[in-house]
């Protein structure tokens, strides 16, 4: 029967061309939509690696001409005063490369036997708890790290798997042109599982956290971990405390949760729009398929009558029509897949290949499901045609 259907499709190739073209373009568009959606959703399901609920961020400018001793004293005082507020749990300092801020500091070297490219963030010893990091090996920074011969760093699991898979990583030294430590080497003291600070929908990246003591002038932002259900007056209270101690008003307080939501919206909205376009397209393709099938069946009533007369059962007739449309869809998909395969093969975009393969499979699945759904009812109707009547309609 497959050969027969193929012969029929081939002999009617001109008539089937438009349908094949419709399936071809539907596949291409669905492929584009699903590649975008799948690559984003696959990123989304990876944990962020830090807390956004109840974590606030204060950005402060550090004056260039600050006296380091005064600055250190001010920092300690600010921490003490903020932590004295009952609704504040903990405070830590960081550089201005903060979650969802779109800023990045990147460095790379191939001097360790592998191509190391990583993003860098400097943090003090309190960030593990303030940020809610998940240390899976080793430890976070401690105050004594300031005396360490090598600059202590915490790396992400992704980087560990890249450079130290199956090898002990804690206390390992590696070359990283960060500062003037001995031989430009830094020492790994811990590993965190994830840290997607650019946003929930971004790909994970190799991360290196570098220790800076609280008093470092490099750290000009502050994480403030607050208790659940903080009162509306807390922000004002924090604001006043910072202003009083720093004697400045040029700082901003934001919640990480609002930043996360804002950043996520930038992806959710296009996903929604693209899925809307995809759904509209699917409805149109479905209507097209349904129309073509109805037309074909009505035009081919005598042929259906003939086939029934020659011994075809009702299921043979239904299978014939479903088979024909499925075969056209199959060729449309194969043709489109030939073009979409170029994306992973030629690495046209910075998207993991697996996303393309998933998108191809899902697009093909959606089209086949659509074809089956649209052909089911017309084919069933075709099967019910009375051969005695249909044969006299020629």
């Amino acid at each position: 029967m497959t050969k027969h259907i193929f012969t029929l499709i081939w002999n009617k190739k001109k008539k089937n061309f438009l349908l094949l073209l419709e399936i071809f373009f539907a596949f291409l568009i669905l492929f584009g939509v699903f590649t975008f959606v799948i690559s984003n959703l696959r990123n989304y399901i990876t944990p962020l690696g830090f807390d956004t609920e109840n974590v606030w961020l204060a950005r402060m400018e550090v004056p260039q001409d600050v006296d380091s001793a005064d600055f250190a004293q001010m920092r300690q005082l600010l921490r003490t005063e903020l932590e004295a507020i009952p609704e504040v749990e903990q405070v830590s300092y960081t550089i201005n490369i903060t979650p969802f801020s779109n800023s990045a500091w990147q460095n790379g070297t191939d001097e360790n036997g592998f191509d190391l490219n990583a993003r860098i963030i400097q943090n003090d010893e309190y960030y593990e708890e303030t940020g809610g990091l998940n240390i899976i090996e080793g430890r976070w920074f401690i105050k004594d790290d300031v005396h360490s011969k090598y600059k202590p760093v915490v790396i992400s699991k992704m980087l560990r798997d890249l450079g130290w898979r199956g090898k002990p990583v804690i206390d390992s030294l590696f070359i990283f042109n960060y500062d003037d430590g001995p031989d430009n080497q830094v020492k790994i003291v811990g590993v965190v599982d994830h840290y997607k600070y650019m946003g929930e929908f971004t790909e994970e990246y190799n991360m290196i956290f570098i220790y800076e003591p609280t008093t470092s002038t490099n750290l000009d932002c502050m994480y403030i971990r607050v208790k659940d259900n903080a009162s509306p007056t807390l922000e004002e209270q924090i604001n006043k405390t910072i202003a009083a101690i720093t004697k400045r008003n040029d700082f901003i307080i934001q919640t990480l949760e609002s930043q996360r939501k804002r950043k996520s919206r930038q992806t959710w909205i296009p996903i929604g729009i693209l899925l809307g376009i995809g759904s509209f397209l699917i409805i149109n393709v479905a209507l097209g398929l349904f129309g073509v099938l109805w037309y074909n069946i009505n035009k081919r009533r005598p042929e259906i009558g003939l086939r029934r007369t020659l011994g075809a059962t009702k299921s043979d007739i239904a299978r014939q029509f479903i088979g024909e449309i499925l075969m056209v869809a199959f060729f449309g998909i194969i043709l489109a897949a030939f073009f979409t395969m170029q994306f992973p093969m030629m690495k046209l975009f910075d998207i993991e290949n697996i996303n393309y393969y998933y998108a191809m499979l899902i697009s093909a699945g959606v089209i086949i499901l659509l074809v089956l759904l649209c052909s089911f009812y017309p084919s069933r109707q075709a099967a019910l045609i009375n051969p005695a009547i249909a044969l006299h309609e020629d």
Partner: protein
Amino acid sequence: MIKLNNVNKIYKTKSVETLALNNINLNINEGEFLSIMGPSGCGKSTLLNIMGLIDEPSQGEVSISGYRIDDYTGKSVAKFRNEHLGFIFQSFHLINDLSVIDNVELPLLYRKVSSKMRRQLAEEALIKVGLKNRMKHFPSQLSGGQKQRVAIARAIVGKPNIILADEPTGNLDSAMGNEVMDILLGLNQEEKTTIVMVTHDELMAKKTNRLIRLFDGSQVQ
């Protein structure tokens, strides 16, 4: 071979009942060539459809080769039609998108016959009707007579013991009609195929073993 007992066929609409066949009793023997004549609308094609198991009598019994037909919708009747009956139509009913040989293979498609065997049997059938050289042609490239010969090849490819022909020469000129009739007579005489033919043509009918006439759904001769 074909036995019809008290067969009635009534077509019903909401307001009208039409009696298409009225109490038909018919016994067609194996190897017989029977023709059915009558004016248009007298029920000839309905009778042929009932014998071909593509239409169901409203009353009465139909049995073919000892097989009594009770269910006209199931798979068994489709299988029976496929294996025992061959059909020829006035308007040929060839599928224009299939080549001659693919058209002839059609009945074998609904049997468990390999593709190679289908092709071989179809070729044999086309040789019988003198169309071996037209196998790859499409119906649109054939004359009316050739089309009907293809239809005959399709009817005989499955080696049925009964052929039902509904005005097989109706659309052909006399020369082509005679050609087709000769093939049918050959099948009847040489292969002992039972043939029931509906016709309007007295000359054709006279060439068959027996003639029955219908008028307003009743058998009058």
